[in-house]
């Protein structure tokens, strides 16, 4: 019954449904839109702009998947989730795909029964200090006071790092990033530590950003990636290869600008297979032949999305670093389209 929420509460029968399983692709096609779980707001990764349109690194990936599956990057229903509600939203079928800079860990993959389909951002825990402290390396931080978010993996990483380097520190526990900014700026702690992307975004919001530096050490591995439910391999293949298509497109120099030209056919057979002018990769996935072309056309290839949302031209100003293509010395690497 579609009438109104008011009536549906009053007369809806209560069904006890099992976990949503089976053909997610069919559900998405039937709904006519992709339900994509994103953050309620994280600088550069997902946030609505002044006119209410979602923008960001994770948001772009949702649009690319929607374009590949439904042919229209705008057919996405963004479901905002908090760190606490994200996994239940995915497990209960409220979202088809979770792109919410979630760290790929063993227990989330195995115990919570999700499939991480790849890594779209390699993050790691870093340190920010005021320049006037004159510190060049995290190993010089002996005796420093450190602002640290409680109850996170960053807290444990920090303890490990200082112990293995035989230096001491004094933790200043804080609850949220907003609180950390205030504490750090008021001088309650010498060092602020969290994920490097978060540090860069925080630093970008400072009045005198030049007076603060990020130290070169990265003390933990935080591979962030989109994830789907266990048990629907076709759907996880679609999402995985959409990400791979974006990465491969950058590697092969296919951009949203030259896409139309490339589609006419090139001398490079891998580009032709990717764009569907040769072979039948799309049909193997259960999608149209030009699925990857639509995915790339949505927001551009991996590199374009990166530069547009969190790259060096944006206020966040993240360098590619580990997230450069493998040909450029980074870790971004896609299996071949063959």
């Amino acid at each position, binding site marked *: 019954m579609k009438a109104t929420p*008011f*009536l549906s509460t009053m007369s809806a029968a209560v069904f*006890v449904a099992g976990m949503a399983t089976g053909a997610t692709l069919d559900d998405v096609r039937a709904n006519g839109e992709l339900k994509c779980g994103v953050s*309620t707001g994280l600088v*550069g990764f997902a946030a*609505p702009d002044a006119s209410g349109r979602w923008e960001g690194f994770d948001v772009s990936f949702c649009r690319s998947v929607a374009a590949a599956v439904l042919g229209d990057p705008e057919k996405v229903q963004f479901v905002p989730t*908090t760190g606490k509600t994200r996994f*239940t*939203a995915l497990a209960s079928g409220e979202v088809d795909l979770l792109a919410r800079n979630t760290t790929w860990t063993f227990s989330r993959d195995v115990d919570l029964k999700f499939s991480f389909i790849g890594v779209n951002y390699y993050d790691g825990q870093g340190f920010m200090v005021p320049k006037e402290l004159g510190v060049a390396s995290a190993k010089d931080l002996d005796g420093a006071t450190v602002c640290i978010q409680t109850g996170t993996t960053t807290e444990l990483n920090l303890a490990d790092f200082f112990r293995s380097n035989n230096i001491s520190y004094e933790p200043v526990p804080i609850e949220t990033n907003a609180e950390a900014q205030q504490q750090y700026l008021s001088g309650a702690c010498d060092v602020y530590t969290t994920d490097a992307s978060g540090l860069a975004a925080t630093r970008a919001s400072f009045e005198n950003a030049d007076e603060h530096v990020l130290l070169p050490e990265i003390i933990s591995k935080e591979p962030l990636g989109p994830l789907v439910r266990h048990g629907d391999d076709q759907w996880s293949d679609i999402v995985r290869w959409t990400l791979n298509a974006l990465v491969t497109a950058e590697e092969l120099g296919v951009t949203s600008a030259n896409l139309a030209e490339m589609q006419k056919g090139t001398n490079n057979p891998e580009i032709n297979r990717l764009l569907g002018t040769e072979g039948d990769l799309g049909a193997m996935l259960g999608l149209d032949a030009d699925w990857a072309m639509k995915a790339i056309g949505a927001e551009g290839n991996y590199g374009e999305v990166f530069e547009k949302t969190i790259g060096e031209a944006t206020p966040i100003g993240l360098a590619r670093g580990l997230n450069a293509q493998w040909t450029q010395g980074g870790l971004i690497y896609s299996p071949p389209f063959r």
Partner: protein
Amino acid sequence: MPIDTSAAFVRTSEIPPSPPPPSETGLVKWLRENLFSSVGSAILTIVSLIAIYFILSLAIPWLFNGVWNASSLSECREAMEGKVGACFAVLTERWNQLLYGFQYPASEYWRPNLALILLFFAAAPVLFFDLPRKLLIITAVYPFVAFWLIWGGTFLGPLIAFLGLAAAYFVFERVGKQNFALGFIGAIAAAFAIWIVGGGLIPDSASDNAMLKAVPSRDLGGFMLNMMLGATCVSLSIPIGILLALGRQSHMPLVRFVCVIFIEFIRGVPLITLLFVANVMLAYFFPPESTVDLFIRVVIMITVFSAAYIAEVVRGGLAALPRGQYEAADSLGLDYPQAMRLIILPQALKISIPGIVNVAVGLFKDTTLVSVISMFDLVGMIRGPILASTEWNGVYWELLGFAAALFFVVCYGISQYSQWLERRLATDHR
């Protein structure tokens, strides 16, 4: 007796009163008595003055140097040229998002505005009982009109919901006079019959070309969401709370038992837990396509929570009444509903007013907790989308100060109304 004329001068008129010494008059006297009456209070005065000076010397330049026109925090800082100042531009640029959330269609803002204005008309007959009783019809119709205005879509939905309730009322009035149980069950049956038949008659496409564009619940947000949750939950939880309080005092063991367990269970659980249950757990129990709307799930949880508190407040009022009042009602031959309606509740509720208002104000502020289950109320908008935008990351005081001001206005209004109500109802001799 002869007059002694040896004196050179005899005063014949009264000396005009001289002014009091300067230390005993005007400002000086007031200062001496109120601010410097002892060493201790003198020290306190001076310390307070210094504190006030410090606060004002920080706050006034911050307020008056404020920048109202900029499109990002960095532009604000450029405009201030290194001086201290607030960046109020975030409020002007994100004004609509703060009030309506970021998804409510901009062309439809007049609808919640109109619903808010109508709310005053609908609430007036309840709040000010000197108004003619006929106006209560507005109050009865209002929820359905407001629902239609805010959510849009076909007007048949709220219309059928209203007709169902009206039929229930009608059946109860007719049958309930003779036989309470028959009337009660008949009323419920009539309501459900109309809802199910009427709900089936609404074509699925009714909302597609409706006069008012349909807006799904997840698109609601901003202070509008706080107001909607606050108004709905307060108005639902007061009657439910009164019923629970009466049920707890009932002589029927089953009713008393159910009410006690309900109240104690709900009071023993934090609201945030209930909200998580509403958001997270219920999603497991419903199939994905027929879930109950999130807004309604949240309304149910907040209402249940505050009804339990109001029940205890009202029970306090009932307990404060002298036993003679109950006996007087019995001796007049009134039955239970009459005794409650005419004698007990009017007095008990009067005693409970401060407590009920306390719960209502607390409930209104608790509506901001929905931001933890990813609903974008005022605080959720600030913490999520606005602070996470690249333009406004780092603006805290201005946004949270604005939220505090909005909540203060509403809560202070509620508190002033309750004081007026207490004065208006004061019939005791002091």
